[in-house]
């Protein structure tokens, strides 16, 4: 992807904020949000894993309606990456882990974006998360001993500097700070400024903040 195209995509999603699931004031959402934590406690801890790997086995990736409440989310047949990331963050926080929200821009081919358009339109939704050859994605961050690891709950894989997701190269990332004092995170040896889109250099080019 040309650098200007990536910058254009980053501008489109400049104000993007991590997806969040809403709570009804009624019992339904308390049951759902509590259930997913208890289920995680049963499954993920037994497997000795840090992350809730089972989400990917439970839900297929696909269109989700927004806004979305917890009681609706647990009953949906498909989750988009925003639901996966919101649920992953919820579960990691429930485990007492130092979780971060992370946004990503992936490279996409025209055939992929066409397919995604069909998939979303069939569900009556607009795939606003693609822009040219770029696709918006949400993942999870986990800070341990001062080092950020990025985990994609949609694919149940880790994203490392210089590597791609199974589907596509990750071109840019945006890490949301835990607090106002957190300006930078160390992503396995690579310093990422918080709150701005940063080019990963996965397909060449220099790693660093994307200009607007």
């Amino acid at each position, binding site marked *: 992807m040309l650098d200007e195209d990536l910058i254009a995509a980053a501008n489109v999603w400049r104000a993007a904020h991590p997806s969040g699931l809403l709570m009804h004031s009624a019992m339904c959402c*308390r049951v759902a949000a*509590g*259930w997913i934590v*208890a*289920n995680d406690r*049963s*499954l993920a801890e037994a*497997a*000795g894993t*840090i992350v809730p790997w089972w989400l990917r086995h439970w839900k297929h990736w696909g269109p989700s309606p927004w806004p979305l409440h917890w009681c609706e989310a647990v009953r949906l047949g498909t989750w988009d990456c925003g639901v996966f990331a919101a649920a992953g963050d919820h579960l990691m926080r429930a485990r007492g882990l130092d979780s971060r929200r992370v946004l990503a821009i992936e490279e996409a081919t025209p055939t992929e974006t066409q397919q995604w358009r069909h998939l979303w339109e069939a569900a009556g939704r607009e795939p606003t998360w693609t822009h040219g050859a770029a696709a918006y994605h949400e993942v999870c961050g986990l800070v341990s001993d001062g080092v950020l690891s990025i985990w994609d709950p949609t694919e149940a894989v880790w994203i490392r500097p210089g590597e791609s997701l199974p589907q596509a190269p990750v071109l840019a990332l945006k890490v949301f700070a835990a607090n106002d004092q957190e300006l930078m995170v160390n992503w396995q040896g690579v310093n990422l400024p918080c709150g701005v889109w940063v080019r990963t250099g996965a397909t060449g080019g220099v790693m660093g903040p994307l200009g607007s």
Partner: protein
Amino acid sequence: MNASPRILVSGLYSGPNPSPGVGVVRSLREAFPHADLVGVDYSPRSTGLHWPEMDRVWVARPWSELNLAEHQRQVQGELREDGIWISGLDLEVQWLANTMAQNPRILVPSTEALNAIRKPPTLPDSLAIATPDYLSLDAPDNSLFRFCRRHDWRIWVKGPYYEARFVSDWRQLQAARGELQETWGAGAGLFAQAHVAGHEVSILLCAFSGRLIDAVMMTKREVTAEGKTWAGAIAELPVALSAALADFVAAIGWHGAAEVEMVVDAAGRRWIIEWNPRFPAWVYGATLAGRNLPAKLVTAVTGLVPETSKLARSTQFVRVVLEIPTRRDHSLPDIPEDGPNPGQSAKHPSGMPELARRLGNTSSRLGLSPPLHQGDEDPDAVPGWGPEMEPAATPCRLFLPEVARRAITAAAGAANCASRPALGVRIVLSIKTDPRPEILEMAREHGLMLEAISQLEVSAALRAGVEPHDVILNGPAKWWPTPSSPGAFKGIFFDSLNEAAMYVGDSPWGGPWAGVIGPRLRLPGTNSRFGIDVGDPDVFGRLVDILTDLKDRQDIGVQFHFASSAAGLPGWFHLFSASLAWCSLLTELVGPVTWLDVGGGYDPEDWNDEILGWLTEAAQTAAARVPSLRQLVLEPGKALTQRTSVLLSRVVDVRRREGTVDVVADASIAELPHATAFPRKALRLRDGAWISLVPGAGTILGRLCMENDILGRNLHLADLRVGDLLCFTDAGAYDRSMAYEFGRA
């Protein structure tokens, strides 16, 4: 110096579980286009023989028929003065180490170096690569059974050089042990090893006379169904690991190639799986990443600089399936006729196990004594035994009342000790594990509650003098055949939401159904047919609704039963912790959960050695995490009754076969329906004393015309005679309550 080195590369099989030869040849051909490359294998079925980059191939006779001295002369003849041998076969490496390791152009380690990494390898602390727990398969069966339970029945049964089978219960372990003993021979160094979950990572290294030349790390990115690498990513070793590896290689004087197979767990700890004394089959993947270790090894031997030095093309590699033409001078043999069975020639019969036996070095490094041929007297097997107890007719199940009394007393005592003012702890005896009146009465005397799964069992409890308010109802058909209680039960744990709905209405006797009612939970991740599947959010939501309806008229309890003997002990403790999480959530959503009933069956040894001592901690943990709890109930299942009976049987036939003796007993799986589900002691009566039968190759066959009527395996039975009295321990619990009439009339 010869610019066209002659290199013999062995181990060319290129199937789903490939040898490294083709990858080595590809790497060498890239670096030395003019090298004289000779491929070597021991079966014409080795598919890699047809790889086109070899100048010549040598198909030696299978190891099973090779004259090793002659083969040594032939190898030396092929090598001449300046040839190099790179072996890709574990056992060939061993043979070469034994016979020709003094020749540095044969790139294999010394016997001493091989001994240093022999399975299961234990590496120096500096490498920070731990060894998963293991135990020799020559260990006593009860030790092996304990080992497997303590590792959650996630166990690998491994051969001395290669072959591994994953097993998850005792029957599978027995079968895997039998298969590997068939291949490698008894006492051949077979062992069981705990599975470690995590990412599979390997180190590829090569060394020359103890000097580490290069090493890289590979993380598997795709694997076959057998777990073999199908794609991977190559990376540098961490600096500290590289330095420690260089020290270790120097310390043991490693010479040649090696692959260190590891698992990295969720906490980042490295665990060694195997240290293979050869290149791995994915070696060309490292070459693609710019790290041609076969070429570096040849350079170390010859001083030749590679003619071409390709840069890294990718740090990741994949495998693909290729069809290639066969060599003109090596046509493919037919698949052998195999009678009525489908032809299966995928195995490549080079005779490695035979070579292992001929090398005579498959004995265990695990430090165990060879099996005894004289059993020890075991006075505890049948407490109080005297000649007057010898039965007139066999088979005969002998009840051991003192054993039962001790078990029940110990359980009641431990529960009393663990009880706290705010949280009582009680034991409940499952009637189905042994409904004999003596046991039910003992339980009542010692304050145990009883668990019934049918109204017939309720009747048995009432006949033993137990009141309904000391009976807990469980199971999917607890009201079958007709309700028989004169009053409320202590507890009822429903198995379905349909059943739960019943308890919103009135009981047949007018008052409350029970002191406490609640769901039996089917916890996520457990493979069970019982209970409410709380892993389904809809089911959980409906459970919350029903409990909300019930809470104003009944105390709410929760039950989780799952056999620790199946889940393993750590796995069961995890389920206990998970059950507290569900109790806590139900308390938050519905109202106070006051009872927790856990259990499902423990091995008697685990119950006595682990669970009884853990009760106090369990009560503390439960009270801390679910403060509304008032009662913690433990249902030990078979643990209380398994050892309360032994089965006596006489030998009715002695059968001698090649090198061993089998016997036929007049007992059968009709009296021991769980004969092969867990190990038990088998003893013989000699001079009035019970003597343990020691390990051997014999089998105790049951009297029935049933193929699976096997009462004992791997026993030394040569001294037995027709009429000898045998004893099988642990014949209570389900071996009693599930015994059946068969073959008697």
